[in-house]
């Protein structure tokens, strides 16, 4: 720290959400991810950046892609990793979250990546242990690394995020992906809208600085990018929508609807998709789809977050991946 730059780009100890970050911090993470992209393209996909660090992936909710993406990021940076999967909440498991945290801490770990069903669980853990905590999704609150990989994907495509018009379509009410993207996009200067049935749009969303479209056709005409959310099928049983069929009819993103979109509009989706519900296959598999680049960028963004929280300096990332750290 000869030049006085704080380690980790001043992110602090944890990455709990994007609400608490500045646009500059977010751009730093994205910039740091750039050099890490290349590692995954190598024949030997491993660099010694996090050698000797112990990372626990603590997943209280089932997750395939997020957990695997983190695990690849950790392993490609040479960290030692342990995966803990617990179904249901810690309460159902019989141990409280605070006890789980203390137990892990007593084993002298360096970082925890946690996915948990309760909003605020990541903050709760971060406040109680000295290790770095990375939120892998907490309830309906935030999923910051997902939004970061989405921002990286949009930046790759458009070159610039400022002024970009992004509309998030679907179940905003229950979506941590939506919240993190709203914060992240707003902080880097994008314009954000949401669209979906009013039953799935939370009260007070406009006060966060986003506009609301009632009809997906209007959203499509306005947008540079459509961010299509997964529709949890249980929302129908809970009475938020009358049927999945009707949802697709009214809000589904289809090739036909996209005919009225601007030529370079892109479509993102956090996965896993319900084909034929919120997104039609000809869109998901079509030229506008960013879905696979999103997944690829996920590993690089998570490497960048791990590197920065471990104290790495953004400007040294290029050298670090060459093994010079």
């Amino acid at each position: 720290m000869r030049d006085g730059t704080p380690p980790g780009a001043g992110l602090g100890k944890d990455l709990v959400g994007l609400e608490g970050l500045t646009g500059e911090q977010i751009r730093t993470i994205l910039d740091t991810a750039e050099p890490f992209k290349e590692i995954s393209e190598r024949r030997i996909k491993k660099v010694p950046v996090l050698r000797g660090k112990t990372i626990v992936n603590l997943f209280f909710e089932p997750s395939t892609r997020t957990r695997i993406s983190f695990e690849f990021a950790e392993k490609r940076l040479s960290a030692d990793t342990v995966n803990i999967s617990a179904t249901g909440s810690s309460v159902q498991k019989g141990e409280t979250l605070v006890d789980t945290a203390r137990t892990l801490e007593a084993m002298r770990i360096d970082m925890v990546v946690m996915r948990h069903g309760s909003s605020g669980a990541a903050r709760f853990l971060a406040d109680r242990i000295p290790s770095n905590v990375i939120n892998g999704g907490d309830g309906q609150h935030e999923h910051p690394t997902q939004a970061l990989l989405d921002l990286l994907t949009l930046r790759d495509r458009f070159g610039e995020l400022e002024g970009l018009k992004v509309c998030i379509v679907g179940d905003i009410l229950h979506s941590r992906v939506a919240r993190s993207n709203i914060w992240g996009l707003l902080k880097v200067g994008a314009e954000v809208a949401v669209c979906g049935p009013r039953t799935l749009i939370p009260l007070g969303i406009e006060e966060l600085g986003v506009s609301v479209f009632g009809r997906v056709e209007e959203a499509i005409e306005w947008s540079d990018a459509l961010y299509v959310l997964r529709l949890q099928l249980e929302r129908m049983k809970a009475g938020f929508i009358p049927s999945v069929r009707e949802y697709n009819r009214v809000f589904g993103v289809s090739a036909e609807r996209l005919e009225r979109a601007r030529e370079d509009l892109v479509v993102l989706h956090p996965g896993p998709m319900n084909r034929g519900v919120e997104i039609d296959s000809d869109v998901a598999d079509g030229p506008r789809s960013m879905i696979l680049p999103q997944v690829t960028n996920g590993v690089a963004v998570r490497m960048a977050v791990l590197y920065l929280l471990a104290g790495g300096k953004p400007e040294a990332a290029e050298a670090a991946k060459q093994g010079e750290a």
Partner: protein
Amino acid sequence: MSSRPRPAGGPGGRPVLLKGGRLLDPSRDVDGVGDLLVVDGRIEAAGGTLEPPEGCEMLDADGLVVAPGFIDLHVHLREPGGEHKETILTGARAAAAGGFTTVWTMPNTDPPIDDPAAVGFVRAEGERAGGARVMPIGAASLDLAGERMTEIGEMVAAGAVAVSDDGHPIWNAGLLRRLLEYTQTFGIPVLQHSEVRELAGFGVMNEGKVSTALGLRGQPNAAEAAMVARDIQLAELTGGHLHVCHVSARQTVEQLRMARERGLSVTSEVTPHHLALTETAVRGYRTDAKMNPPLRTEEDREAVRQGLVDGVIDVIATDHAPHHYEEKEREFDDAPFGIVGLETALGLGMCELVEPGHLSLAGLVDRMSCSPARIMGIDAGTLRPGSPADIVLFDPEERWTVEPEAFLSRSRNTPFGGRELTGRVHVTLVGGVERYRRSVPDEAA
């Protein structure tokens, strides 16, 4: 003759003379320096300079306000079943420490207080506790299930003062109608936790901007106000006494204002925390700010405060809801609702109402003592000679910092820890007997 002397101030004990305090009795528009004499548990004389009778005990009230003891119509003392949170003994003593001389206890214990034997248990434990008077509220429905009416007459005979299913709303309109009719025989109110469950859902905080940002399930104002609107119709239909618990939403205040204008027998309460805090206190997922009804917006806070000032809301009640620290030390969704309130109520009332000029000191004493006595017909809330000597002595200017560890309550779940408050209770007399005296640090040390 008993070998043990009877306590001073109480029946058969030595008289007690409170010397030189500021007698503040809003029930008679009295506010001035004077003495007050307690004989046999009752106020013998109040005002002017009084000569101490023979064998009298003196209590120096110089610099202190001498007021009718506070009455809290809404506390949870958790016994039976939740003794790790609070007992009737610790709760009654915490109440006395807060200047309360009477508390009404909610029946949502485990098992609930839904029969005369359980009512008698609470009453007996309350008498043994040696704190504030403990008055049991009986359950309105058996097992608080909202289906069948309890034996209200039997419970009243055993000492119940009201009925409520608090914690749950009495959601069945037919049952509430019958309750508002049936209770008239006994002259007791029905205390309603107003919440349309289909609207409150599993909400853990106010629904709005903050719940949206935090990703927490919200309860809209309409969940409360819609139930109150319905219940006011039932009060009008029946003529029964409906008391609306812990008003939190501005639309509820509008409903209550309308009921007041129509002269209906509808009363209500507001908690100190709904007067002091808004939903932003939840930020950071602070479980000590999780309560039901939830903390609302600044607009709602102003509305309930104005309602209290105008008399549309009759009283301050704490909704004292103790929880063990480990129950609150968990994910926000899983933490229980409620905070303790008995030992911070006066200080919050001073800071939120009197200091900013919303209420006079007499107005605050009225909302905490005279008004609850008046609306519920309790023989207290006054310094009129002949009344029970339920008296609080407090310093209205003393500043102190809330230290939850120092609470007499068994629980420490408060969002006000570390906050500086004005106004501190020094002595509490219940039936003339000293039930609380603040231990003052040894000045010689």
